[in-house]
């Protein structure tokens, strides 16, 4: 079940150690992203790409 959040939710989750994933194309990510966000464009989002991420940790996408 995916939960929709606003920026306050994002800030709170960041403090709790959530991983932030920017799923926009690399060019858009490079031009400006939320501090600490990792870039994982939607078309590259597969098992191999997320292999290093902990499944039990909260993850926020935008």
């Amino acid at each position, binding site marked *: 079940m995916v939960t929709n959040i606003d*920026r306050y939710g994002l800030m709170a989750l960041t403090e709790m150690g959530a991983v932030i994933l920017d799923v926009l194309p690399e060019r858009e990510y*490079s*031009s*400006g*992203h939320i501090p600490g966000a990792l870039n994982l464009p939607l078309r590259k989002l597969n098992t191999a790409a997320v292999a290093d991420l902990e499944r039990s940790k909260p993850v*926020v996408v935008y």
Partner: protein
Amino acid sequence: MSPRAACRLEALGFQQVYDYTLGIADWKAAGLPVEGDHSPTQVVADATRSDAPVAAPDEQLGVAWARAQRTGRDDMIVVDCDGVVVGRLRDPVWQQSHDLLVAAVMELGPTTVRPNAPLVPLVERMQKRATDLVSVTTPQGVLLGVLLRADAEQLIAGDPPDQIWEDCDGCPGHWSTQ
């Protein structure tokens, strides 16, 4: 794009998936820091005030007016319960009876722009039409903030805006001098 990514992450076994649906445009509009090369093209989000005085269609004009006065502005954006822009209040609407409902007197279909639109051509259009404010929304029409032409002109000239909207969680917010 992010709802699809969120769905895919769940399918990949992530147990706590959150979607910041308004995304980077909302983040920038709130004046929060970003990392990266910063696009050389200035966009609407760069000069957007993170919040705007808003009114609801089903409140009395007088109630909205009292709130507008506290913010020091005489224009308000009318949003429905989902945050979608449905109208605008500005002079001379305030001359009408303050007992009327906002929905009865608001200007319908105000101009909205997307946060990723290039700033310079928009400001040129605003100058030609003598428009001083537009609502900045998501493609679905959800209000992200307002762009004041004066702020945008200042930013294009190389100066940061001299006032920003101080947004805060659970309180009305206010304009403040930087």
